[in-house]
């Protein structure tokens, strides 16, 4: 069976509603499904100017499109800077279109290609993976894909990732830790803390994807080990 590369990605956004917010940072790393390690030099990290700021004119800290929202404060708190600096940085970020185009170019480098393989298509594309991507990040991916013509009209989803396979690490973690009583929450922060992963720079998209990739690799190794030992073949036969 062919194994497509796994793209662990994460957006940092200017809002909490995935149907409306704009990404301000996009980071990704690739996982090799054979070697079960992060592919060397596969880090991707880019900023994107939020759509609200692309359209607005004469934006200042007293007059910005985020109004009463505390999103700038939240980002400022995470980064340890004031909200005026966050706004200033966002205004300097490259246009969403160009940043998105770079992400498409990046993904193209990790298609499952080689001799005897069919040409690049959505079926050779990397498998999307991330924390809570089903409910959040993939919605943004679909929205941007539709906006920039990377959308599969038939499938009604983005064509930049494999159309069938998708790994939401939050589900994986949730299933494995379902019966562990001390787990009260399966947010990335809680899991990071439970597993003993350093939380410095948490909520930086690149830090988050690297942590997610390392968690994924642990689970894949476990999965590989177990699947070789468990007898799946005919396991229902005698029932």
């Amino acid at each position, binding site marked *: 069976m062919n194994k497509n590369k796994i793209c662990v990605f994460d957006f940092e956004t200017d809002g909490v509603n995935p149907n409306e917010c704009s990404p301000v940072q996009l980071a990704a790393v690739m996982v090799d499904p054979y070697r079960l390690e992060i592919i060397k030099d596969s880090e991707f990290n880019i900023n994107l100017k939020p759509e609200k700021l692309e359209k607005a004119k004469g934006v200042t800290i007293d007059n910005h499109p985020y109004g009463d929202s505390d999103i700038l404060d939240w980002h400022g708190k995470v980064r340890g800077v004031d909200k005026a600096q966050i706004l200033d940085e966002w205004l300097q970020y490259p246009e969403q279109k160009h940043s998105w185009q770079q992400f498409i*170019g990046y993904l193209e480098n990790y298609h499952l290609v080689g001799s005897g393989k069919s040409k690049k298509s959505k079926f050779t594309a990397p498998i999307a993976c991330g924390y809570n991507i089903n409910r959040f990040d993939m919605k943004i991916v679909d929205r941007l894909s539709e906006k920039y013509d990377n959308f599969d009209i038939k499938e009604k989803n983005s064509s930049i990732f494999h159309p069938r396979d998708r790994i939401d690490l939050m589900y994986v973690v949730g299933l494995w830790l379902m019966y562990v009583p001390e787990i009260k929450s399966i947010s990335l922060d809680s899991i990071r803390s439970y597993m003993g992963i350093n939380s410095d720079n948490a909520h930086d998209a690149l830090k988050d994807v690297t942590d997610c990739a390392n968690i994924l690799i642990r689970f894949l190794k476990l999965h590989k080990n177990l699947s070789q030992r468990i007898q799946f073949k005919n396991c229902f036969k005698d029932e």
Partner: protein
Amino acid sequence: MNKRRCACKFEKVGKKIDLDLRLENLDLNCKTTWDMIGEGNTKGCFQLESRLGQTMAKKLKPTNIEQLSALISILRPGCLEAYRDGKNVSNHYIDKKNGLETVDHYHDSLKDILATTYGEMIYQEQAMQIAQKIAGFNLQDADVLRKAIGKKKADLMAEVKKQFIDGAKQECIVNVEEAEEIFGWIEKSQRYSFNKSHAISYAMNAYLSAYVKAHFPSRFFVSYLNFAKDKIDPLKEIYELVSNCREMAIDVCNPNFKLLNKNFVLKDKCIYFGLTNIKGVGESVFKKLDTIKIDIEKASYLQILFIVLDNINKTASKNMISVGCFDYFKVNRKQMLFDFDIITNLTKKEKEFVIMNIAGYENITQCIEGVLTKVNARRRNSVESILNSLKNPAYSLSDTIPWIADTESQLLGISVSCSKIDECDLNFVNTDCRSLKDSKSSSKNIMIGIEIKDVNIIKTKRGANPGQEMAFVKVTDSTGSLDAVIFPEEFKTFKNLLSIDNTAVMKLEQSKKKDGMIIKKVWQV
């Protein structure tokens, strides 16, 4: 004779070499040629190029045209499917030739007719000779027999049988029972016997192609590679031919844009891929390149990007960059792809502005900075974003070995610059594919680092537990490729590692007959 497959190539190969390659002047006792055939190195040799042909040539090790003709005859389905005493006729012939089976001729009177084929009736002409000798057939009657055999006509065979038995009674060389037995044998042979005149002419052509391959391998491969596009699976054909080149230590290089060659070409003892040998670069792109008025030899990196690549279709441009056509600029391929993507974001007017001032720019950043001085306020943000992307790329633009290997494999049919295994730690490896094929390695404790190219899983028919899975595995490294087998016990243990494109270290052992490699252990690398 299939002219396109064979004669054209000889004509092309013979153009620039001072050697008379006419069949009548050919040295039919060339040891180099016979040794090469005997090693099974017959890829590209007329009638012997299939995997079966290569294996059988290795087993039989023919040393003259008569044996080569027999080899071509026993490679046909009839012989392979005709079983006697649990073994097919092809293997009977090979074993008899190699002294592993006793040669008998059914009857002493047939000895001189069957001697050249070690007692096996391989050719239709042998049936004709037997009929002439045993049953007194004249040439016309014998030809009827040949037709009956060749066309496999049952009613005609029945008529001829009666005539054969009657004739045998008159000739009195064999008795009626023996005559019936011999005719029965002829009848059975109709399923597989081949026309000798065909076989000999095939053998001559097979030898001629092998001779050219042995003495002028580079020229041979260039011509043969140029015919790969006519095959059902051109990329597979290119893969096999280039692997064979590597095994024969012939350099094959990536396409080089400066050469501007349409097809494969031989230059400085190296075979270069042509531009149209790149997937996605067709005749129309090549013609378009011809119309671009620029001195390719002297063109700068920026000129290539703005004047050449921006004027042909995007896929072709990207594919040419990806396979290393422009490696002579010493710029990473990913960097060049990135730069190409950058310029596609400029408007037509902006590109024209850059082209007009191209002599003054040293790099693409300067080009975009130049554009920035000319754009209006509305466009300024976009161009600034482009410049920002250029100065701070979001991902590494260094070319990694797996990326190069995968991309070249997909677009050229084979990875020319490197093999995926090259980036792995291979300290404990003690050989490579070429050395193994040349038998330079010991038969025990063979450790080899490889990339898996093909895994053909089958179920065992014999042995203690028939129905178990085993596999034939094709592996490759930068020196060539190799076929190996993995038996059920080992397959069960290592099957998870035997995925196409995976890289691994394998412990191999030579088979007892020394005609193949057996996989004993596999480690992920």
